[in-house]
């Protein structure tokens, strides 16, 4: 009996490993199972990879499309010169990568959502009421102009990235006056994201900061292609400038699909992922823009809020995504066990998230289940 005891004690551990083994994980590398040709797959390819307009840069211009089903690659295609080893710019998908990095710090007890940002980033003493959670909901209340191309003169984000803010993007953001009380309204702001990136330094300490995204997130996930550019002050440009291959970005998607678990390790607390996937409480859908995704905790949600329909009618309501300028997307459909990475160079508005998700589901998840 006493001989058996260690085995009995070890049993849950063994069973735990078995369930992790039964799942497919890209540890160390992705496994692939090719999907057979089908009309649904042909329709997806026709949508994502039409003849590419290089002269006028119009239409859908996909650089990479990767579909993972239940931990295995079922589809992968690139448009030259982008290829499987290209570390592609994520643009604003970096914001969700920052949130996921912060999730590890959250699990280590480095901060709480209701702590003032100023505790970690002293220049925010000018905005003492702004909490970490407000920034993650893009609800700092600061008077920020996010327009990129239509109002370049007064765009806060263009000034931050390229002119007046580039030496220290968080400090540039902190100089903006408050327009409304923190938490009162959603206003998409790359400045909020870069203040979070600066606050991370205060959370983990100067010595750990430079490597933190790697030690906390990229290394445990086996991501080896990541580049994260800094501003003039050495702060990660959390809003915009992370790069990695499509296969590596899909690792982050799989982590999120499986509620923050990587193999046997709960890398992100489940409560953190739940926060990422909770709509910002005071979000009001924009009139006349029914397809705008709903802000969660630095991730985008296909949630039906405030009486509005879900933004992507043909995707499940629990779908969520990291999204970036010019068509970048990392979509997670947890129930369908789908992770989709799309890198692109879309210069007009013709690409539709809903259409892509509809076609991917038709090709890889059996029937479309809206």
């Amino acid at each position, binding site marked *: 009996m006493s001989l058996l005891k260690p085995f009995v004690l070890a049993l849950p551990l063994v069973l735990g490993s078995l369930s992790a083994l039964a799942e497919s994980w890209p540890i160390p590398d992705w496994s692939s199972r090719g999907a057979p040709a089908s009309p649904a797959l042909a329709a997806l390819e026709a949508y994502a990879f039409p003849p590419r307009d290089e002269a006028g840069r119009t239409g859908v211009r996909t650089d990479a499309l990767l579909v993972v089903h239940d931990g295995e690659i079922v589809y992968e295609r690139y448009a030259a010169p982008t290829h499987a080893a290209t570390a592609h710019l994520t643009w604003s998908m970096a914001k969700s990568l920052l949130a996921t990095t912060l999730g590890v710090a959250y699990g280590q007890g480095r901060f709480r959502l209701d702590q003032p940002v100023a505790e970690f980033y002293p220049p925010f003493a000018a905005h003492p009421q702004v909490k970490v959670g407000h920034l993650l909901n893009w609800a700092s209340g600061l008077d920020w102009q996010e327009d990129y191309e239509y109002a*370049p003169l007064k765009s806060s984000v263009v000034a931050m990235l*390229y*002119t007046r803010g580039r030496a220290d993007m968080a400090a540039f953001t902190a100089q903006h006056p408050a327009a409304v009380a923190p938490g009162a309204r959603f206003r998409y702001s790359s400045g909020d994201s870069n203040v979070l990136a600066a606050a991370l330094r205060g959370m983990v300490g100067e010595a750990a900061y430079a490597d933190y995204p790697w030690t906390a997130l990229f290394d445990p996930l086996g991501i080896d292609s990541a*580049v994260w550019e800094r501003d003039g002050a050495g702060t990660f440009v959390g809003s915009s400038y992370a790069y990695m291959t499509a296969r590596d970005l899909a690792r982050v998607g799989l982590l999120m699909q499986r509620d923050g678990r990587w193999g046997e390790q709960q890398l992100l607390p489940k409560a953190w992922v739940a926060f990422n996937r909770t709509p910002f409480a005071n979000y009001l859908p924009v009139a006349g823009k029914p397809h705008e995704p709903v802000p969660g905790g630095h991730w985008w949600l296909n949630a039906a809020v405030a009486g509005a329909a879900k933004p992507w009618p043909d995707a499940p309501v629990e779908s969520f995504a990291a999204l970036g300028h010019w068509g970048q997307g990392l979509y997670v459909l947890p129930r369908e066990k789908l992770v989709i990475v799309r890198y692109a160079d879309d210069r007009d508005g013709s690409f539709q998230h809903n259409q892509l998700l509809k076609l991917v589901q038709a090709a890889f998840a059996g029937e479309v289940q809206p």
Partner: protein
Amino acid sequence: MIRRRPWLSLLLLALLVLAALGWHNRVHLQAFPDIVSAYSAKEYCSCRYVSDQPADYCRAYVTQYVPLSDLQDDAAGKRVSASALGRTHLAQWRDQRSGCVLVSEQ
């Protein structure tokens, strides 16, 4: 004056409004000519030395409505300088993890 020279008066008024708008937006206007060259230097540098894309692809990738007057790609030093609207900006590749950054020194 207004009755004798209505068009001149209107023109003066328009100039006055423009000057007021310009003064009101002076911070934005001063930085505006820097955008195209700074954007091009930074994004070309990252396209070439972070994403490792071909030079001709990156050249097309950063093309905007406002043309560049010059683009210098120093492949040995991984430094890119771009000029437009009378302003020049420089981006420098740092290392494997931190990619490119705009630098002020020429």
